[in-house]
């Protein structure tokens, strides 16, 4: 069962059982963005509040599997309070991770940039790469957030 535990790491199960930043924000001023996974029916709603180019607050609602829910929780913790430019970098790094570029994370080399350090616990989602059909579960919240940032530009 090693590969199953690779996917469902303790950090992931923890965020699934106790999701961070769960809830809604008054919209407006917050922007409300919906994301769907039409294949499995997962739905996510991201509320983001950007002020002076900083993502000052983020909340999430919706339903989905442990991977999509923990990924959205981990994402919210990683990006909250960060400048939008840095949020975009974190999103880009996470999507790289999901494309199988795990060499930058979880390797013997310590992350060298502030962006990678900011990802921290996100490395727990690395195991998803070995389960290709679940990658879209992990990226749902991220794509939704990216869409929200694009719309607020």
């Amino acid at each position: 069962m090693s590969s199953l535990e690779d996917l469902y790491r303790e950090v992931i199960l923890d965020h699934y059982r106790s999701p961070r930043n769960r809830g809604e924000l008054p919209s407006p001023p917050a922007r409300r963005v919906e994301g769907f996974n039409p294949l499995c029916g997962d739905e996510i709603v991201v509320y983001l509040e950007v002020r002076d180019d900083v993502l000052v607050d983020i909340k999430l609602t919706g339903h989905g599997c442990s991977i999509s829910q923990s990924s959205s929780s981990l994402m919210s913790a990683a990006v909250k309070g960060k400048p939008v430019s840095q949020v975009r970098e974190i999103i880009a790094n996470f999507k790289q991770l999901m494309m199988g570029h795990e060499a930058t994370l979880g390797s013997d080399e310590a992350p060298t940039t502030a962006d990678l350090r900011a990802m921290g616990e996100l490395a727990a989602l690395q195991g998803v790469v070995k389960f290709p059909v679940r990658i879209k579960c992990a990226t749902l919240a991220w794509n939704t957030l990216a869409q929200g940032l694009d719309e607020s530009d």
Partner: protein
Amino acid sequence: MAPGEPVSSFDPRRVRADTPLLRRVINERPITYLDSAASSLPPRAVIEAMSRYYEMRHANVHRGVYQTANEATAIYEGAREAIARFINAPAGANEIVFTKNATEGFNLLAKSWGHKNLKAGDVVLVSEMEHHANIVPWFQLREVNGIEVRFIPVNDDFRLDLTDIESLMEGVKLVSLTAMSNVLGTINPIKDLAALAHRHGALIAVDAAQSVAHSPSDVTDLDVDFFIFSAHKMLGPTGLGVVWTREAILDQMPPFLGGGGMIADVRVDGYTPANGPSRFEAGTPPIAEAAGLGAAVLYLEGLGMANIVEHERNLTSDALSRLASEFDGRVRVIGPSDTHSRGGVISLDVEGVHPHDVAQVLDQFAVCVRPGHHCAKPLMRRFNLAATARASFGPYSLTRDTDVLIEALHHALTMFG
């Protein structure tokens, strides 16, 4: 076993031995295939029939005059005859149209028959338990000519709520219903509903994709007007579907796709469509798949549909009672709780574990189930669910499969509990 050789007495272990894929070992465990509702596993006879076509008889159909072309045509038309016999089509093979799958069958129904016969305000009556294939083509037709698509509700016992059926029938020109829900396992009273539809001057179309390999399919006895299903859910290959309708209706239906094979004549000023099923079979058809379907029909006939029904009822009854008693209510069956008018499709809602995670854990036990909304989102919404994890039986299933399912479900509950 030679293709089509009848099996004298039904033995699921014999069916297993005939099914190559069930020899797979995954994660050091023998595969437990519980996804026949999504696609059933072909026996060797089906695979060999397709190989034999490619190896010995490959040619296009309805064209050449040479030996193998004649053989290919005989295989293709032979499959049509086999299907006509299997569903007891009153006028035989002339009523059988081959499509790509059941979904294309419903598109043919809506875009050919529906487009010609339905006008603004006419009602197509479907139900909340339909597959998207029997919903979306009607919505598409609604965009074109303003028909109304009306839904028979599903009650809390997971069955059609027919309380107000007489008023629901107002203005209905076509009733289009599944014979067996691909989510709930519910078997609908098609024969009664056919009588009701005809009493109201409407026709009735049946989505038999889920039922065709799990209950007898006698269109004459059911007295229905359209019967639509796919080969790969009846031990046959993917890429082939079937539409049956009465010859008198078929003859009046306009062509669907245009091209070669579907014409009687083409001139520079226009074309004349062919008569019969060919009118709906533009282009080179799936010949190898038809060979496979013909073999699948022989195989199912050899097993005996009544035997299959009884076997799967026993499996379902056993699984339902064990699922109800094993988990202290933490595993809920989304479907009828007994085997009355119910097939071997068992949708599960596992407390605190999303269906995708259920299926992922089950995969470690080499258990194949299907997570998701099963292309039935209106039904999911009806029961306030995003998805279920669905286990489903086939003629090769054994109670041992349920043993492994239950073991794996315990593991999932422990892991996420």
